């Protein structure tokens, strides 16, 4: 009797232990479940639909019917045989490269300048950068519209006064190159603060003793810079560059609003605008879905470096 009772308690205790272990193991899953469920519904399901729609003829009629007509890979075929797609792709790559290059070079140089200046200048410049960083994109576009308008924009006035040339009533939005150049000035201006402040944070992690030791050893300052400073900030520069590439490749708001919807045409399309015009505006959702998939694949390929690096950070910590 006594033994039996003892065994039962033992057994039930063990069972409750297992249960507790299982319950404890289930806790993290219970914690992530809401996010997974919501993301599955609002993003997973749409992406599944995206693949389905890309294989359909799907226009306004099909949108109302909630059902497309299966046409296989025809959407992809027509996009890939469209000269506009390839021109837009090349233009977007060149545009993104120019923006990223300028942002990274200026952003890094200003960060290096922050190390050199007196404390009050550093404070002033940082405050200015943070203010610029906080400007909403649509607000910045409207300010650019005002500053660069041909009739009495302050840009033309300043350039003329500085004797850069005669820019009296110069219109900056006549050719695709000059339109996109204005977009670039806007994007680079807005993106510099994030790069500068991040690189400066990395620079302040360079051990001072290391620099001093190198200087005592008689190393020249640029040698110190190359051997001590550069290795410390390289990982940060890599991450910032890949992030900038992704952002600038997919940018929509600034070019769409600054060039202005009536002036958007096949000659100044960027990838996201091409997709917007040919998929959404012309209500050809099947074709738009095919363009979306091509764009997402390109971006995914570009982001592999960044994502892998971030995952490594996520795993270690």
């Amino acid at each position, binding site marked *: 009797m006594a033994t039996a009772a003892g065994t039962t308690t033992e057994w039930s205790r063990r069972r409750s232990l297992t249960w507790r272990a299982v319950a404890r*193991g289930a*806790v*993290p899953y219970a*914690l*992530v479940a809401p*996010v*997974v469920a*919501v*993301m599955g519904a*609002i*993003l997973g399901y*749409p*992406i599944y*639909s*995206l693949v389905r*729609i890309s294989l359909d003829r799907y226009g306004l009629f099909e949108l109302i019917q909630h059902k497309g007509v299966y046409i296989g890979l025809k959407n992809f075929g027509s996009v890939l045989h469209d000269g506009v797609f390839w021109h837009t792709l090349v233009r977007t790559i060149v545009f993104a490269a120019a923006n990223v290059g300028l942002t990274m070079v200026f952003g890094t140089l*200003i960060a290096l300048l*922050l190390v050199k*200046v007196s404390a009050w200048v550093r404070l*002033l410049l940082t405050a200015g950068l943070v*203010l*610029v960083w*906080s*400007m*909403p*994109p*649509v*607000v910045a576009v*409207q*300010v*650019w519209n*005002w*500053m660069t308008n041909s009739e*009495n924009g302050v840009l033309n006035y300043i350039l003329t006064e500085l004797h850069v040339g005669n820019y009296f009533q110069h219109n900056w939005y006549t050719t695709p190159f000059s339109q996109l150049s204005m977009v670039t000035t806007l994007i680079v201006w807005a993106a*510099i603060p994030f790069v500068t402040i991040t690189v400066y*944070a990395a620079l302040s992690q360079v051990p001072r003793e290391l620099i001093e030791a190198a200087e005592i050893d008689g190393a020249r300052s640029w040698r110190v810079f190359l051997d001590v400073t550069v290795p410390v900030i390289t*990982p*940060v520069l890599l*991450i910032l560059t890949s992030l900038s590439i*992704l952002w600038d490749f*997919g940018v*929509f*708001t600034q070019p*769409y*609003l600054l060039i202005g919807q009536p002036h958007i045409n096949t000659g100044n399309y960027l990838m996201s605008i091409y*997709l*917007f015009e040919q998929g*959404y505006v012309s209500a050809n*959702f099947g074709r738009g*879905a095919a363009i*979306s998939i091509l*764009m*997402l694949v390109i*971006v995914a390929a570009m982001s592999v470096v960044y*994502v892998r690096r971030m*995952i490594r*950070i*996520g*795993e270690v*910590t």
Partner: protein
Amino acid sequence: MNVRNSHRTAWNVVGVALFVVMIFPVFWMVSTAFKRDDQITALTPTWFPLHPTLRHFRDALAKPFFWTDVKNSVIIVLVTVGIAMVLAFLAAVALSKYHFTGRKLFIVLVIGIQMLPGAGLIIPLYVVLARYHEVNTLTGVILVYLTGALPFSVWTLRGFMLGIPKELEEAAMVDGSTRFGAFARILLPLVAPGLVATSVFAFITSWNEYIFARILLNDSSKQTVTVWLSYFLGSLRQTDYGALMAASTLTAIPVVIFFLLVQRRIAFGLTAGAVRG
């Protein structure tokens, strides 16, 4: 020493010049908003509004739908941020305090989704929302904003939680608290600044968003303030730049205030991993 000082002076001059160039567009926006019309249209610009006027602000505020659209923006942003914070907080606890099978996949998705370009998702989100009659509703926009706010908040909150020393939590457990008790009494107060910073940043991102609000909301009475501002130029040949700059200033003010409050923390949160890696 003298050479060093003169070098520093030269760098200071460059620094101040850069400050002037960078800040100029913001200065020009605010300055224009306060100028009289004749100073705005003149070919020779007036640099400072010596006789400031509030007329442009009154004009901007009197434009149709400004307050309606501000209200829409506030509703969308508050609901988005509220839902995102609660759900993301739970997931961030799982990521920072537990090791579990599938954790790596979850991290890959959280980071990967943030890399997707918004434009690439226009078509699927529009079509799916149309299927459930959520086009031209605030709910539809909130759902779309959650696709971005959730992964961002999970990842950022995780970063803040890692900063909390495990010993503190363990000390509370030894005291006889349950894991939940430890969580409520120790973890929550410590993570509160992170929660505030993350929600403010999610707030700003949603407030600034343009493309989905533009696509999903067709009625002027249902738009957000960003879309309202983008239509401001209108089709008139003679643009009222004074009112446009006043409206831009008004749209930017809440963002600037919030941004200044949390910028330090978020800059840390975004780059902590990067610097450490």
